[in-house]
């Protein structure tokens, strides 16, 4: 399947791009993170500490074990700091 993967804030800086199109068979967000980590040193650094990561699946906050079946847009970012 083909996914749009978005990165925000410090994650965007580490990976070096705000978005990329990814072709994958990964079943969950966590499985995809392992695949993405192999793409570059920046990706590896971005995904090094999963506990400090948040993600959204098709713009809904989700946990890292969320399934990717049918998902079109996945976003990774650090904990939010609004307000």
């Amino acid at each position, binding site marked *: 399947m083909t996914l749009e993967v*978005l990165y*925000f*804030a*410090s994650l965007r800086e580490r990976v070096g791009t705000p978005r990329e199109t990814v072709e994958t068979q990964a079943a969950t967000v966590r499985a995809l993170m392992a695949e993405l980590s192999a793409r570059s040193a920046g990706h590896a650094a971005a995904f090094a500490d999963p506990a400090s990561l948040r993600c*959204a699946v098709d*713009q809904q*906050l989700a946990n890292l074990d969320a399934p990717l079946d049918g998902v079109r847009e996945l*976003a990774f*970012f*650090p*904990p*939010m*700091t*609004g*307000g």
Partner: protein
Amino acid sequence: MSAHVQSAPFDPAAQLRDFGRGAGAIVTFTGIVRDEGGTLSALEIEHYPGMTERLLAEYGERAANRFGLSDWHILHRHGTIAVGEPIMMVATAARHRRAAFEGADYLMDWLKSRAPFWKREIRRDGSVAWVAARDGDEDDLARWQDA
């Protein structure tokens, strides 16, 4: 009832014209960029376009249902915001004060930890640093038990 995300500065008082007509109580909160002891020059705020707007409206509705608000207004800026300028505001209107206070408190706790915004400090010495989330923000949100 409205949620807005914008880069332009805003005047909190002007936002309240026509807000909460007929309510017995209106509570407003405005967040302003602190100078952090003279070290900060501005904040830069990034957000997730599309998701942010939808979530703000969703939580406004959730607060309205939970606290019986007759009106609510959420405005959050993104982009570069100078020291002393408003970053965001929340206003709630209800028949009585308790609902208005609690609705605004709830929306603020939620905005701090669940709305997809990220702050970066632009310091006077030229350095730049992402603001880390506070553990206390999660504790604040847990008070409402529906995070």
